[in-house]
């Protein structure tokens, strides 16, 4: 430190010293030990975990996966900036949600072929191809999130809209009318906003700062189309 003070000359000047100017003064003394153990605790934990799952009962396996899915559902319902969804991604949750949504949105077979609401396959294709397109888009824009992590987040954030679909189906059991429509409209809007907020909380940090809006807009379009399908659902 004393050497550095001498070399800067007049202490009152505001001229910045060149970077790394003091590095040449640093030397590693001989008696600092540079040795140790490098272990990754997570890795060894998982390895011992894996070898014991072969012998456990089926119920344990299923419950463990279900608990992981349930924990992620909680993270979506109360979105905070955590990266649990990103770290341990899985696609069970999105699959369950997508199948539920598609089953509920399916039109009855009484309708004619062309003029009805979406079929199961159409909903499925929209959800999965939409999620893949958004993921490719965010990767091409320079985001540093992996492909499956992004699919996982987008799939899990459909949860509020699935809840909206359930509510809409229940509300549609009552008599039709403008109040019926207003209730459904309100529920769908709130859940749409919740989906967007949840997915933005997880995805926004992985984008370069001057392209965040470019990456978030397709997510907005995706959930908007799904909300539209939910809102226009009419049972026969």
């Amino acid at each position, binding site marked *: 430190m004393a050497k550095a003070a001498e070399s800067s000359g007049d202490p009152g000047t505001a001229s910045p010293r060149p970077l790394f100017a003091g590095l040449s003064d640093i030397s590693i003394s001989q008696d600092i030990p540079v040795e140790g153990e490098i272990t990754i605790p997570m890795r060894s934990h998982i390895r011992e975990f894996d070898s014991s799952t072969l012998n456990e009962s089926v119920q344990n396996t299923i419950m463990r996966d279900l608990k992981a899915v349930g924990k992620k559902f909680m993270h979506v319902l109360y979105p905070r900036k955590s990266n649990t969804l990103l770290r341990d991604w899985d696609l069970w949750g999105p699959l369950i949600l997508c199948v539920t949504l598609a089953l509920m949105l399916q039109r009855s077979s009484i*309708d004619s072929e*062309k*003029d*009805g*609401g*979406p*079929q199961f396959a*159409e909903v499925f294709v929209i959800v999965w191809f939409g999620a893949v397109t958004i993921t490719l*888009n965010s*990767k*091409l*824009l*320079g985001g540093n999130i992996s492909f499956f992590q992004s699919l996982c987040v987008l799939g899990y954030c459909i949860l509020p809209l699935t809840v909206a679909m359930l509510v809409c189906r229940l509300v549609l059991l009552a008599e039709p009318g403008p109040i019926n429509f207003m209730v459904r409209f309100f529920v769908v809007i709130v859940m749409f906003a919740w989906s967007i907020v949840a997915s933005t909380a997880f995805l926004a940090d992985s984008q370069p700062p*001057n*392209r*965040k*809006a*470019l990456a978030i*807009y*397709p997510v907005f*379009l995706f959930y*908007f*189309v799904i909300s*539209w*399908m939910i809102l*226009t*659902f*009419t049972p026969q």
Partner: protein
Amino acid sequence: MAAADELAFHEFEEASDLLAETPDAATTSGSNQLTPQGHVAVAVDSGGSYGAEEEVEESDRTALLQEEKQQPGFWTFGYYQSFFDVDTSQVLDRIRGSLLPRPGHNFVRHHLRNGPDLYGPFWICATLAFVLAITGNLTLVLAQRRDPSIHYSPQFHKVTVAGVTIYCYVWLVPLALWAFLRWRKGVRERMGPYTFLETVCVYGYSLFVFIPTVILWLIPVPWLQWLFGGLALALSAASLVFTLWPVVREDTRLVAAVLLSTVVLLHALLAVGCKFYFFQPLPLAHPAPPTQAASLSPDLPPPPTARAHTT
């Protein structure tokens, strides 16, 4: 900060300002120093034009960028990443440029000078397809509220139709246009035609003005719908024509006129086709006429088939 100013691309700003002030500069040999800036960013299919440039200060830059840009092959991810190399402000600027076409402002030279992107065309087309299907559906809902005999159905297949139509338009028409311009390139040596991606970009961004128009088509007043449609078509076609004019003006009169009118005609066909398919005049809703006829005329004479039986 002084360091940040030094790093700004002063030469780019000067060149584009020069071009913006003097739109005729696009046709003189002075523009040769500007064309490589548009072409260098996408080095894929204009490799042949590099040999013609002889300005000393440009050849170094083109040589350097040529080395950089030719490295990713089309099978690598990095190749496609170069087409999405835009910021939010750039995309917004390009949209604004397509909404307000001005005779001197060439969209490609002025707004795309940093390089064409695929983000704009792709997502504008996707938005337009969904907005078309959704507002078409909404029109039917609103009409049904006024006239309960119209049969409502969420016509989901229209999303597919809208998507396929718009994406085909934005990819196939620029392909044809680009191929035609390259074929005619032999006639005019001075100004190189646009690359394929720049043409796709121009078409994609020119479709943006239809998004608010389609939303405004919800208002069920026919003359207002035609007014909005005409306005949108004029803006969009003007943007295309002003962009194509510097390239086409050196060709023979006949070819220029035919090309520009074909471009405008195809655009008009797209607009009118969308209006008619997605916003059908409502008496054409098919299940409606029998129920309407039955409810309106219970006391009319029996239909001709019954009369035929009696005679």
